[in-house]
């Protein structure tokens, strides 16, 4: 499978009166066409920022730098607003976590979908409306024709998320980023949305980047998995490799916290908390919470290295077993 997108050495920092702390400290990743990459980590580890940086949608007050961003045959080191606009909606789309506030409350739902058709494919008003109704049907909204005329506040949470998906996939983008798509929904609706995403991915040959703090959810969907901690990717590889034999202490800790059917005894939990990005410890950011931490971990921040079919950023594997 050829590489759809590759990102090298992404840094995201916020400027505040007390200095410019970095929320993302040199993340590099690539996405192969047609695969599903899961990006997991506790909240505040920079996974959403990484996703947003792929579309240049960082909130004001944040600045992003990267060595190179390559998408199919195009390549940039510092994309201009026009470059970002050429990607957004047409090549890469995104679905956010908050369905309740992500739709314009005073515009009809059908119109918000049709807008993308009119903009990217220059469709006339009628054609765009028909296409939008079609798209809403595709994402599983009942009586799409009549519901399209309604307003967002008349839709349930699940239906609004489906609309957002319809908007994102209207122009058949190559990559769909789903940033915690189901977090705000209840469990039953969650399952439906995931099933929908799987179906659409298959039908439209999509590449999917699924971001979540819920390992269980990602495990059902992803082909490859990347674990982030304090603004860095600490372990990345095939799903089975990472889940079956987790190498990085943090990954191991995360998996230990997952409730298992039939398992007895107290759930394990990781001591300590995710460090504040403006007061990061030296060397490996995880070392204060790592049982195996030794002198080197406290001095140097480990790079990602190939270890048994996946890449890990930990000194345990650097200098021999």
């Amino acid at each position, binding site marked *: 499978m050829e590489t759809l997108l590759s990102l090298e050495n992404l840094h995201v920092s916020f400027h*505040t*009166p*007390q200095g410019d*702390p970095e929320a993302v400290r040199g993340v590099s990743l690539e996405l192969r066409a047609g695969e599903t990459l899961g990006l997991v980590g506790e909240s505040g580890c920079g996974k959403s920022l990484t996703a947003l940086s792929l579309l240049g949608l960082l909130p*004001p*007050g944040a600045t992003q730098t990267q060595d190179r961003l390559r998408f199919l045959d195009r390549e940039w080191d510092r994309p201009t607003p026009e470059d970002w606009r050429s990607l957004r909606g047409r090549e890469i789309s995104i679905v956010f976590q908050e369905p*309740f506030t992500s739709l314009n409350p005073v515009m009809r739902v059908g119109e918000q979908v049709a807008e993308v058709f009119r903009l990217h494919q220059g469709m006339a008003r009628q054609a765009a409306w028909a296409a939008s109704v079609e798209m809403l049907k595709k994402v599983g909204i009942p009586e799409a024709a009549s519901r399209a005329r309604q307003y967002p506040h008349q839709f349930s949470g699940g239906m609004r998320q489906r609309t957002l998906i319809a908007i994102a996939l209207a122009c058949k983008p190559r990559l769909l980023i789903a940033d915690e798509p189901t977090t705000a929904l209840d469990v039953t609706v969650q399952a439906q949305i995931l099933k929908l995403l799987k179906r659409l991915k298959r039908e439209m040959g999509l590449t999917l980047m699924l971001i979540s703090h819920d390992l269980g959810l990602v495990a059902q969907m992803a082909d490859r998995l990347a674990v982030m901690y304090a603004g860095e990717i600490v372990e990345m590889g095939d799903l089975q490799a990472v889940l079956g034999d987790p190498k990085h202490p943090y990954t191991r800790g995360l998996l230990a916290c997952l409730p298992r059917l039939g398992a007895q005894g107290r759930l394990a939990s990781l001591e300590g908390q995710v460090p504040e*990005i403006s007061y990061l410890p030296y060397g490996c950011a995880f070392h204060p919470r790592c049982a195996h931490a030794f002198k080197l971990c406290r001095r140097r921040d480990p790079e990602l290295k190939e270890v048994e079919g996946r890449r890990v950023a930990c000194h345990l594997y650097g200098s021999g077993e």
Partner: protein
Amino acid sequence: MNAPKPRALKWGAFFLLLFAGVALLAPWLSPQNPDRQSLAERLEPPSPLHWMGTDELGRDVASRMVWGARVSLGVGTAAVLATTLIGVLLGALAGAQGGWVDALIMRAVDIFLCVPTLFLVLALIVFLGPGIENVILVIALTGWTDIARLVRAEILSLREREFVLAARTAGASPWRLILKHLLPNALGPVYVSVTFGLAGAIMMEAGLSFLGLGVQPPTPSWGSLLTSGQDYLQTAYWLTLFPGLAICSSMLVIYLFGEGLREYFNPRAAQR
């Protein structure tokens, strides 16, 4: 993620305390006795002796400004607070409850807007007699209607939000629903109306004192200084300049303080 810019809040609070200090410490700060007339020095421009010149009766404008701060800032802030309090609460109640409560409050708004204020004031003077509290009462009685309608409109559009419905289903009492959920998001227009409300209240105090409801001569207030300056605008500009600047700067202080508060409570909106 990043700490909100405390600068606006810091500067706002600093100036607010400064103005309040000037008002409270008037007796010690005022260079001369504000009521001492010296008809010989009538309408003199600002000079080392009189920093802000003298008024039509030869009284020192600088000391009248310092003493005037006591009335104007006192009445101004109290009236604006009262107006905002009544307006926000009734507006929120009308917006959140809807139905007959909403109709009742909104019709009260219509009534208060239409009753001729001048006669209301004159009637009040007879029954309550002149006095600063009555000035605050009148300003509040006639001022709350605008804010009420603005807040009600904001609340109406918030009402449908899921998180509100969720809170309501969880059995939140109307007041908890309003105070905890609806109001924090509906305070947008309130900031603006408070800022402009202050200047309005200061000028209204002058109007009401002019009719005999508020302070009686020779007690100074910024508003009365300004209105008496109108007759000498061409010959004595300073009678109008300094009260005008004072009102403008107090508006600025309230704005800075408000902006600081907003940044503190709602960083996302202010970050744009």
